């Protein structure tokens, strides 16, 4: 007897779900690892903070605009040029975790293309565009 796929929708196995799960599974483990390691480097003082850890209680209650100003006005992807500071170094794991979903969607594009799933392909491509737009920092908002 043929073994039932756990991803089955009636009789059709969902290959895209299998691929999505693989990316997610590996990505989460790597992401959480990076998150904990980078935080340890920051908290143990191997890298100094842009705002020193001891001074943080003076800033943590500030509204975002004032906090960012106190931090030197760094927004968007500018943290990439500030990895010498522990607080920005910790952003590596945070950004990786936030990027996993997009990578998983990118992985299932060829699967959906091969299956000629036009509607779902369109949905996934638009979803990737939405996530990339959000990640790009192109969108701005403020008080």
């Amino acid at each position, binding site marked *: 007897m043929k073994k039932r796929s756990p991803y089955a929708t009636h009789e059709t196995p969902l290959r895209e779900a299998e691929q999505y799960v693989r990316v997610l599974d590996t990505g989460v483990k790597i992401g959480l690892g990076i998150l904990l390691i980078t935080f340890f480097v920051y908290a143990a003082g191997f890298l100094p903070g842009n705002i020193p850890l001891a001074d*943080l209680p*003076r800033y943590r209650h500030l509204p975002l605009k004032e906090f960012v100003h106190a931090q030197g006005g760094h927004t968007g992807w500018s943290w990439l040029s500030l990895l010498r500071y522990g607080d920005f170094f910790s952003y590596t794991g945070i950004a990786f975790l936030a990027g996993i*979903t997009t990578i998983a969607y990118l992985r299932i594009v060829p699967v959906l293309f091969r299956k000629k799933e036009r509607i779902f392909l369109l949905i996934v491509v638009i979803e990737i565009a939405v996530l990339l737009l959000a990640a790009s920092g192109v969108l701005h908002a403020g008080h």
Partner: protein
Amino acid sequence: MLVNDRTIIRGRWRPPLSACIRRLLVPVSALSVFAVFPLLAMDAGSAPVLPWWGWALILFVITIGLGIIAVLGGVGGVLFVPIVSAVFPFHIDFVRGAGLLMALSGSLSASPALLRKGLANIRLALPAALIASTASIAGAFWRLALPTNIVQIALGATIFSIAVVMLLARKSLFPAVREGNPITQALVISGVYHEPSKKEHVPWTVFRTRRGFFMFIVIGLLAGMLGLGAGWANVPVLNLIMGAPLKVAVGTSMFLLSSTDTSAAWIFINRGAVLPVMLIPSVSGMIIGTKIGALLLPRVKPSVVRWIVIVMLCLAGVRALLKGFGI
């Protein structure tokens, strides 16, 4: 002498120590969240009494408690923002950023197992994810453009609404679904999962897709605006409106958060509204708490946990409203 997991000592029944600990764990977790409030309120002044690691440690311990309650109460990360913004001296923008990333981490780590078991369905989740993640970006911008007191008031009102939904919402294990919905047929939204209580594979599909997908616009806006985990809203929409079986609704809701929260989280990251010192202890505490909660889940009465969650939400709602009105 052990009889049916109950210890009889000198003719009187006494519950074993582990059972007492299990029974106490949930109320103690709930109380711990509010017990540290006076200390943290003192620390909010211009001369903090705690070093940075002191409040990071308290946050870590409290998020373990929240993680336990989150699993047992079935409300995901919805407790984090109201509770932490009520009792910690962090600005709500950072609490919301941490709340979103914490809900995202939980969703990312739970989704593979849910997809493998057929309890989350990618075909049901994808259209809802696109709608909700687009709306959550709008919600995140809306939030960042609004004054803090308005957000606190909106948060308080929403938390009270969640408590009401939890009080009144019915649940349907296997809803009756009318076949022939055109969107369901076009997108082939259906699935099969194994139901241990029935010892069989249960086929399912959904209907009322237009109404359901419209509701995801509202859910996405709220998730982006308030940084709340949206499981409390996703599950009723998927289960009661669209007719997905309860387990599929819960699993798909968890999976959905990985898209909804990702788009809003990027807005917060790009605006600099993420404090690693706050985020990382919270994520770690929540992961440990949810693991403990999952171990306790078969042994704890759901009704007790439900009432604890409702009371905590009401307290946090009052606190958010008071903050919003400047009291």
